[in-house]
């Protein structure tokens, strides 16, 4: 993992036409470069070697249960907010083989860990919310006691180019969680898109070294102002919010609130919110064996607290009803995480709102659950 420290922003300016230089510099250093590309009607991380593959003028209009790309007559390459997935699938793989076993003729069982083969990967244009989520996933999967070897190997190969958000989607609420719209930490290179070019600054030693080599001119006052205008605009565009962490903790005191049932009536228990959530980490494990019975693989795959098997104890389910599953998800994410990880598990990206097939909005749920109940709590 790159050494992370909060570098003060001393950005250099780059004209829009020169962006290819950065891409080339990274590729020269041996990185596979992933960037935002329009695919399947969304913005997705895809390998890019030329800047013209990036989505010029594309904005992502997001609402509850809705995502539409719109093209504006604009040169901006990062006017979209985010796509259906953060960095999670690139590190915490949706399906992973953990180990392989072979039954030997003498009855011995050979067990071999299977680790992924990775190449150094640079990701272009990672949002502040997704970096905050990544920091949380790091805490979970790279705990000092049990660092996950599969996650670790991919994480160490990652180089991150973060970007300030200059626009917000209607589903964004990172200002209220404190995770955006401007970059905090956890990137190698920081970046802001201005009206007429880019600002770059180093976030790690490795990142600073690359920036230095590009010999950029120090940003002018006007350019710095333009950068701040961008994040200010993004912040001002947000109209959803979550209350502070102290209030969120009180969700545990609202376990019998009638609003849970109202959500239970709408919720499909499909698991989409957990799959797109950049911090959700649940997985299930299971064997696959070959017909000859001589070899088997242990695999893990994303699980969800909305799956019937998640709380299964064999003879009974702790959470058979959808209402209880939604309550588990929300109370864990917003309150339980605070004890487990020192902060709420929500970074304000709003994906769970956008990608919920029936548009359930967690900010509304929280407002309804905590409404009027704070005084007596």
């Amino acid at each position: 993992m790159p050494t992370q420290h909060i570098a003060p922003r001393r950005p250099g300016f780059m004209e829009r036409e020169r962006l290819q230089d950065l891409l080339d510099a990274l590729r020269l250093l041996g990185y596979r470069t992933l960037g935002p590309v329009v695919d399947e009607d969304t913005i997705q991380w895809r390998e890019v070697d030329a800047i013209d593959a990036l989505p010029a003028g594309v904005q992502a209009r997001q609402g509850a249960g809705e995502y539409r790309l719109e093209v504006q007559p604009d040169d901006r390459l990062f006017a979209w907010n985010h796509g259906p997935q953060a960095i999670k699938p690139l590190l915490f793989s949706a399906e992973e083989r953990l180990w392989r076993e072979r039954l030997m003729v003498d009855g011995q069982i050979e067990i071999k860990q299977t680790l992924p083969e990775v190449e150094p990967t640079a990701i272009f244009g990672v949002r502040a919310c997704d970096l905050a989520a990544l920091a949380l996933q790091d805490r979970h999967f790279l705990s000092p006691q049990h660092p996950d070897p599969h996650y670790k190997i991919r994480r160490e190969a990652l180089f991150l180019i973060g970007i300030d958000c200059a626009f917000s989607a209607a589903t964004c609420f990172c200002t209220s969680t404190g995770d955006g719209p401007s970059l905090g930490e956890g990137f190698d290179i920081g970046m802001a898109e201005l009206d007429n070019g880019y600002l770059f600054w180093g976030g790690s030693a490795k990142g600073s070294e690359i920036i230095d080599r590009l010999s950029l001119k120090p940003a002018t006052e006007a350019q710095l102002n333009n950068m701040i205008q961008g994040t200010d605009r993004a912040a001002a565009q947000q109209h959803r919010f979550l209350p502070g962490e102290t209030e969120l903790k009180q969700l545990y005191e609202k376990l019998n609130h009638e609003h849970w049932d109202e959500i239970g009536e709408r919720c499909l228990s499909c698991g989409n919110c957990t799959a797109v959530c950049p911090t959700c980490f649940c997985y299930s494990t299971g064997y696959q064996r070959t017909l000859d019975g001589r070899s088997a693989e242990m695999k893990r795959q994303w699980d969800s607290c909305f799956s019937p098997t998640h709380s299964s104890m064999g003879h009974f389910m702790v959470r058979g009803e959808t209402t209880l599953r939604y309550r588990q998800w929300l109370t864990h994410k917003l309150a339980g995480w605070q004890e487990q990880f020192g902060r709420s598990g929500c970074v304000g990206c709003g994906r769970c709102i956008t990608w919920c097939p029936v548009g359930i909005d967690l900010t509304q749920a929280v407002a309804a659950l905590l409404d009027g109940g704070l005084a007596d709590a």
Partner: protein
Amino acid sequence: MNSTKPKLSVHKFSSCDGCQLALLNLGESLLELPKYVDITHFAEAGPNNPNAKVDVALVEGSISTPDDIERIKQVRENSAYLITIGACATTGGLQALANLADREAWMAAVYARPDTIETLSSSTSISEHVKVDLELHGCPVNSQQVIAALADLLAGVKPVSERQTLCMECKRNGVVCTMVTKGEPCMGPVTRAGCGALCPSLGRACYSCYGPAETVNDGALAQRLQSLGLTSEAVARRFLFITSGAPPFRDAGLRLRRPPLETDE
């Protein structure tokens, strides 16, 4: 010479043979299978010995004729472990749509001499007639699931069932939601996973050929599909399609067709 290998049979009831075809399309695994089992009956592939006693029977198709009822009892009696494969065997299949229609009128419309047709008044799943040990869903069945179940049985272990929703399969496969990005009327949120998210990966809505997931909130999904522009009847038809015989879908579809109750203002 008598073989000690476990015996396997594949039986056909009222069906299109698609699930048997799915098995035939297995390729290498199918060629490997006879190393570990004796296939005593699989008419579509050759072996034809329907009355042999077997360790495992795979049953395709629904029960729709009086003869089917007798035959399935026989198959059950002859089999230590019975697996139903595909939407017909597990839910009654597409042909169960006739259960909800005027069957006599349909017969008269289709056949010149409907009186020569000997059929039951309904098409039903195998499990409505005999005990079924494992159900593998889909239209057609996912033959890899069949192989995985056989691998478990060969090892003397109960096979496991797929219990997640199709949405989870889409997300695992990196398939983008067609409902959210295009307003496609997708049945994925109430559908059992297992197909590999085939339709959504081609940008199409899921039409639930794997049948109901364990949790079916049909009311909430119907409301959403209606907000996408579908009439109540169009939504009903999405529930009443390939797996209309599955109780959660049958009930959901019929509810949508029933005129709404008048409420006191």
